[in-house]
């Protein structure tokens, strides 16, 4: 029985999906940097999509960034419906541009979902790891929380937008 070691090697490869999700469950947001061309990726990739080498290095993200785009979803998939989200109780998700220059899609917390038109692109956010039970299994989900409870934007935007 040759190549049995591959099972573990693949499962533990830090640039594959399984490892990214394992890091999340440990409260770590990991990205990868190409050692040749310095391109940055999140989640980590096994092959650089700019220069196509496999010389990648794991990098821990600081977990700070700003909201680049978002939506407030009223009709979600069963996973979200099971958690009580619906038309009366919508949720926000969006794209966060991290300080490291790369972006990621995640749940967005701490914004006023009742006034979606007043959520501000550019709002500073910080990472938060949500542990939720999904299909009977505990899983860690990536989220970002709008900072300072809206105070920053109380000055600029008249107190609306970030709850």
């Amino acid at each position, binding site marked *: 029985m040759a190549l049995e070691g591959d099972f573990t090697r693949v499962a533990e490869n830090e640039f594959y999906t399984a490892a990214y999700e394992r890091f999340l469950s440990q409260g770590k947001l990991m990205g990868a940097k190409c050692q040749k061309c310095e391109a940055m990726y999140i989640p980590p990739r096994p092959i650089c999509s700019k220069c196509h080498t496999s010389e990648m290095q794991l990098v821990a993200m600081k977990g700070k960034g700003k909201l680049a785009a978002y*939506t407030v979803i009223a009709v*979600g998939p*069963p996973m979200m419906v099971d958690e009580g989200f619906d038309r009366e109780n919508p949720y926000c998700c969006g794209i966060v541009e991290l300080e490291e220059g790369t972006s990621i899609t995640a749940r967005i917390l701490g914004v006023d979902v009742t006034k979606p038109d007043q959520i501000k692109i550019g709002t500073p956010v910080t990472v938060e790891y949500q542990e939720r039970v999904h299909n009977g299994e505990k899983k860690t989900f990536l989220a970002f929380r709008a900072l300072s409870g809206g105070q920053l934007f109380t000055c600029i935007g008249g107190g609306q937008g970030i709850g």
Partner: protein
Amino acid sequence: MFLKKRRLGRGVAVVGVGITKFGVYPKGVRGSDLFVESFNEMKRSVDKGFQDEDIDAFYIGNLSSDIFEKQVHCAAAVVNRLGLVPKPAVKIENACGSSGVAFREGAIAIASGVYDMVVAGGMEKMTNLPTTQVTETLGLALDPVCEFPAGETFPGIFATIATAHMAKYGTTVEDFMKVSIKNHYNASLNPKAHLDASIKDFMKRRAESAVEKGLPEPHWADEMEFLHDPVQNPIIAWPMRLFDCSTVCDGASCVLLVAEDVAKDFTDNPIYVIGTGQASDYPVHERKDMTSLNAVREAARQAYEMAGIGPQDIGVAEVHDCFTIAEILSMENLGFYKPGKAVRALREGETNLDGKLPINMDGGLKAKGHPVGASGTGMVVELFTQMREKAGPRQVKRKDIDLGLMLNFGAQGSTAVVNIFERR
């Protein structure tokens, strides 16, 4: 990156098209039954007829017969139902772009010289499942590591792009509504459309229904006021409301492709395939500019180059309006309009049936409906009909429509396919 100029090994033409009524068929109706319906209509459309047994192969787009109908391997099942065993058949799954890609693969197969006559088409029987499960199934085409766990949905991901477009170009929710008003009007002239009703028709129906129920008769000053009414047009994923979203429905469409040198054996008026392109893209968060659909740009670049034309030469277009923002993104990324400028064309009615570049004449995915696997070849059906001037009340006013283009994309635009047609 793609330096080689590509061309078809030999000419390819469309000589017949068929499409079912899009809408909600009862449970028990199978996708393969719908395909048979579209096939029979396609047969009737071929002016000089053809022999079924002369078909060399089938290319069939379908997103998820497995989840929607508990059936995998649906392409061979279609051939069986058509009585055409042992013809080869392949199912092509590129999410909502499946049959646009099936069409391209069929054209490439003929161009290669292996086949002389193929059927390209697609089908989807989506409505057996409740809406949340349909939402989840379509959502499986999103990125499974970041987008799906974030709770993103299809409307959600396009709504997310919409906020980026609004922030960058000042696009408004009223601009999205303009797409909806146009496409619903076009669909009101298309009996095959799922929602064959204009927004004004909806306003009339809703007012009548209120009166019937003994409620006070509602009044809206115009279509915009109706579309701003949260009861009539609730938010699905802000800023996308119900009337910004394509419909979940059932349907099938197919076309007959033949080698150019025999096309006139089937009709005196074939529509020739002169350009095709396809590309892939990252999930939205990995794109440098969220308002730029790079797969669309690259697929269009390949297709224009193969055809030897540019976006300014196109007379009619069918584009992927799974959500109203997607039509705007399509208009810009195909090069019809500069980024941020498509909304001006919408405001001025340039893309209406009587405009200078009619878009989504059949009502688009928005109003004609989006039975995902059937949508791409559904666009070819409309271009074929328009370019042969057989579209009846929705025939475009413009006469010089010798060049037509279709854009079909999958998921968040991570697949895009562009096909260009010529009438000679």
